[in-house]
């Protein structure tokens, strides 16, 4: 919205005291010579500012030029569309008599003389051609006493009011921020246009000229205080970490036994083992309790082993009891297709677990692990299962059920799953089965009686 100094001096030359002897028409030509349509608004703003500052635009003829140019710039458009129409409306608005003198408010348009008023009202109407043939000086000296003074501007006022109602309240409440503060001690030693022009330049040009700023009630906006919290800084503790690169101690110890056992194992998944193979396998497992982890029995493969070599499966599962993966083996086991072998394995595991828990004084740890580790198992006894008595003692009344509840893999958090796939969903659909013992059987007893196995759909 600022004018370049060059533009400003052009403008000032048009409205200078010397220019007042030119006719309005020739002033208009000059003006359009210097300024294109794009600059009109900026120029208009400067003119309004000058009209607001009587000390910078003292003579009536100069004011006439300013008013004329404000009108001239937008003469092809309807009057109400002129962005400076409010200036005209304000100046023509007849103020109640008596108030006139006091109204010399800073930033407001000072009142204008009668000839100026006359000229302006002519502009509001269809102005006669010859009016613009006159010079500003002529118009300012006109005797307007007997000429029609007032012009009806209510239509214009209405249009302006409508336009203003669309503006935010905040914008409507603004003053220009330039306040006149003439020094009372200084004598008004005549108007010096060069001094005035200098002041105008400082008001209008530059990056953020005072012309642009406005003054309105402002809100106090204190910035938020710094966030307050505890323990924000990084305290550093020496930790003396001693993690180091390690030698792989399993180098070349993957021994022959391992290879042989692996071979037997791979066979065990496919067909029943010979008695000799089986005993060799079991013997090796007995020797090295950790061997079971190294010979390729993953949960996925468990069903094959169970079907072909249930005895081996039982032994291996018992060895795997310590493993965090045991729950996965269990869940595979209970989701297997039902068969005599699978039931046998399940049954044996349950009994062994029970016996371990009942024999050891850390009563029930295995059992509870077995129970909780997979929610699909629910191990229940009709008489107290936690009692450390051998099952033989309370004979036929004991009823063990191992029931399959609908699949719900909400395993304890600390158990990690290796992924495996299996017919788990299909198994889930088959529902639940229960293994029931109506007769007590010692744990180690070979011949257990499977009284009933039923599928409930």
């Amino acid at each position, binding site marked *: 919205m600022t004018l370049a100094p060059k533009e400003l001096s052009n403008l000032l030359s048009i409205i200078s005291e010397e220019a007042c002897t030119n006719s309005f028409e020739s002033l208009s030509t000059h003006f359009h010579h210097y300024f294109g349509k794009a600059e009109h608004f900026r120029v208009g703003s400067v003119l309004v500012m000058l009209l607001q*500052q009587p000390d910078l635009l003292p003579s009536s003829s100069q004011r006439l030029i300013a008013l004329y140019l404000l009108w001239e710039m937008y003469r092809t458009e309807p009057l109400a569309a002129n962005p400076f129409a*409010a200036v005209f409306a*304000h100046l023509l608005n007849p103020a*109640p008599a008596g108030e006139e003198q006091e109204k010399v*408010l800073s*930033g407001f348009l000072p009142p204008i003389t009668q000839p100026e008023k006359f000229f302006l009202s002519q502009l509001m109407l269809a102005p006669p051609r010859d009016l613009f043939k006159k010079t500003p000086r002529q118009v300012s000296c006109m005797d307007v006493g007997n000429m029609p003074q007032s012009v009806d501007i209510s239509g214009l006022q209405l249009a302006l009011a409508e336009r203003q109602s669309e*503006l935010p309240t*905040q*914008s*409507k*409440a*603004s003053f220009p*921020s*330039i*306040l*006149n503060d003439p020094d009372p001690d*200084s004598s008004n*030693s005549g108007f010096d246009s060069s001094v*005035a022009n200098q*002041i105008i330049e400082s008001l209008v040009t530059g990056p953020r000229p005072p012309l642009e*700023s*406005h*003054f309105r*009630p*402002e809100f106090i*906006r204190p910035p*938020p205080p*710094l966030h307050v919290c505890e*323990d*924000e*800084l*990084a305290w*550093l*503790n020496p930790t003396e*970490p001693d*993690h*180091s*690169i*390690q*030698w792989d101690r*399993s*180098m*070349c*110890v*993957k*021994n*022959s036994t*391992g*290879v*042989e056992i692996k071979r037997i194992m791979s066979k065990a998944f496919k067909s029943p083992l010979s008695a000799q193979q089986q005993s060799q396998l079991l013997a090796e497992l007995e020797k*090295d309790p950790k061997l079971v982890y190294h010979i390729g029995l993953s949960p996925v493969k468990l069903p094959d082993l169970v079907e072909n070599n249930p005895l081996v499966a039982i032994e291996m599962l018992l060895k795997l009891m310590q493993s*965090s993966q045991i729950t996965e083996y269990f869940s595979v086991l209970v989701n297997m297709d039902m068969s005599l072998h699978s039931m046998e394995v399940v049954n044996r595991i349950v009994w062994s677990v029970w016996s371990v828990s009942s024999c050891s004084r850390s009563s029930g740890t295995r059992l509870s692990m077995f129970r909780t580790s997979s929610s699909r198992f629910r191990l229940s006894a009709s008489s107290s299962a936690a009692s450390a008595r051998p099952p033989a003692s309370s004979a036929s009344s004991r009823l063990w059920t191992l029931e399959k509840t609908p699949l*719900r*893999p909400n*395993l304890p958090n600390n158990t*990690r799953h290796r*992924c495996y796939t299996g017919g*788990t*969903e299909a198994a*889930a659909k088959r529902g639940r089965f229960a293994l029931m013992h109506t007769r007590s059987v010692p744990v180690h007893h070979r011949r257990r009686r499977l009284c009933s196995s039923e599928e409930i759909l």
Partner: protein
Amino acid sequence: LLFIFKSEQNEAKHDGSPSLGMTDQEKEMAASAYEAFTAGRCDEALRHLEALQELTKEDYKIAMNKAVVEFYKSGQTTTGLLKQTLMSMKNQVHTSAEDVDGLDDVENSFLYYNQAIIHYYMRQFSDAICIGEKLYQFLEPFEEKFAQSVCFLLVDLYLLTFQPEKALHLLTVLDKLSVQGSNKNGKGEYKVRAYIQMKSSKACKREIKSVMNTGRGCSMPYSAPSLFLKSNFEYLRGNYRKAVKLLNSSNIAEHAGPIKTGECVRCMFWNNLGCIHFAMGKHNLGIFYFKKALQENDHTCAQLGDGSNAKKFTGIPMCALLANKRYELLYNCGIQLLHIGRPLAAFECLMEAVQVYHFNPRLWLRLAECCISANKGGSEQESKGLPCKKGIVQSVVGQGYHRKIILASQSMQNTTYSEGQSAAIPVASMEFAAICLRNALLLLPEHQQQELKTENSSKNSSQSGSTESGSENSDACSGKGQDADKFLSAAPSSPLRKQEVENLSRCSILACSSYVALALGDNLIALNHAEKLLHQTKLSGSLKFLGHLYAAEALISLDRISDAIAHLNPENVSDVSVGMLMNEQDQGSDKGDEPVESSGKQTPLCYPSSVTSARAMMLFNLGSAYCLRSEYDKARKCLTQAASMMNSKEIPPEAILLGVYLELQNGNTQLALQIIKRNQLLPTTQQRVSPDFRKKPIQPLQLPSSFTQIQRK
């Protein structure tokens, strides 16, 4: 090379069996290679391994052990090289199938472990954790010693990444593991670190006692780590003098130095002194110590030759790769500088730190605060109670008859656009503050209720779709989710507790967001943030006051003046404390035996300085709002009432300008000029006496503002 020879029995065990895979000769060679290695005779070990390789090429482990020996031979300085070697070995092992068979991993555990170690020292903690957790699944088959190594590595990693609960869980596992074995010391120290991160003072105290009591003879001095930990504990409890004393009693001069231990204890010492003085509010000392720590750190880095980036990870012993604490120090320094009132310097530091800790919402908030404080401008004097003339008069143009006063437009001062710069380029601008705050808000977890809902729903969905692989994922996720439920990571400092997040961080972030949006002219966003702020359950009185103020200003700009006036009721302010101290439940319980020093924790802060001044500010703003509705009488009443509540020297420039505005509106230019010149509000009694003809105030010419408005459109 502190390896304990353990696998002899294993070997002996299989001696008798018929050999199909490995010959006895090979096994013997392997054993002697290992023996040479543990004895530190690297060359001999290498010779054995080479001979072994000639016999059999099958086992990649021979090659790996060769690489390990060569690494040790280089004094552990060829970390980068070893990393590459291990990586290529891993790729070899896994060419066939992407570990379908879990047992395969048991075989390769050492390879994985070594990879994890390298990730650890290269600060690739999440990669290291990933491998470590995989190994942890197969803990049982491992021999005890190795299982322990895996666990300790994971514990350390969890602590480094501020997941104390996971670390504690593992430590209990370790307790079980080492029932028979040698009780590796340091477990207590790990526990203390975890409890400190969790801010559970009681457990921490118990554990510290046992740490201090064990692991030293009666004449031996306490170790530096234990002293530092105890000092940390006392620091957190607010016993600052005690904390300093403990730090001083650790004999840092005798410490082995960063090349050996990978830690610069001197730098830590200065840093911690800085922390203590910061907490005591002695900010100048704080900055002094932090700078010292930075110097020490630079010195260490220079010693390690960290400057040469070309040959990264070579030439420095692996353990020293962790020695550089630059980012932690810059973080501390930045926060200290912000509190000392040097926002631009603070911004520089924190910008560097945030590149590492970009998941810390509080750090983003601090960055935004730097921007805000750097853009506050003249209000610094204002806060000191010295209203400067500059706040009212922008300039004086001309002299004598032509003298003109240009009033300062506060809105111009308050609205800051930094033109021509992308907001994404970090400059301490309000635009950048907005970005920081958005990041901070995004990093906060959703409100609790919502989170519970989503978590439940995700659990349900994983239950219904019961493929096991799916449940594996959800398991892992929910494990993390649970952790995140209680704690929110705020590295490099201890994680934030849930309530801390809700009460303080979210409120502060919202308040800043609203303020920044106002400054940027985003009124709708500002209103949105302010309203959210006012809906927070545990809102401090101070921020509640600001929330009302910001909401009102936004509403005014949105032309909803009546709504704004509702916010500006002075009754809305009843308390201006900044709100603080939430660990009373922790603190109160054990105050009994050790009195907390009186110099201790922060006294409750207030902002603004009192309820009265807050109310006065509200009244000033209320006056402005009335002005906009042309209710000048009410505005004047507000102004005089507010002015009477304040020391006349403290009256903010906005209030004085409101007085000027009212006089101008009243047609009283002379009085307005007087107010400006004296820079204070004047009693204006007689002006209202004969307001007969002023009933209808003179309509000011509204051009300038409407012009700007049109221009903007």
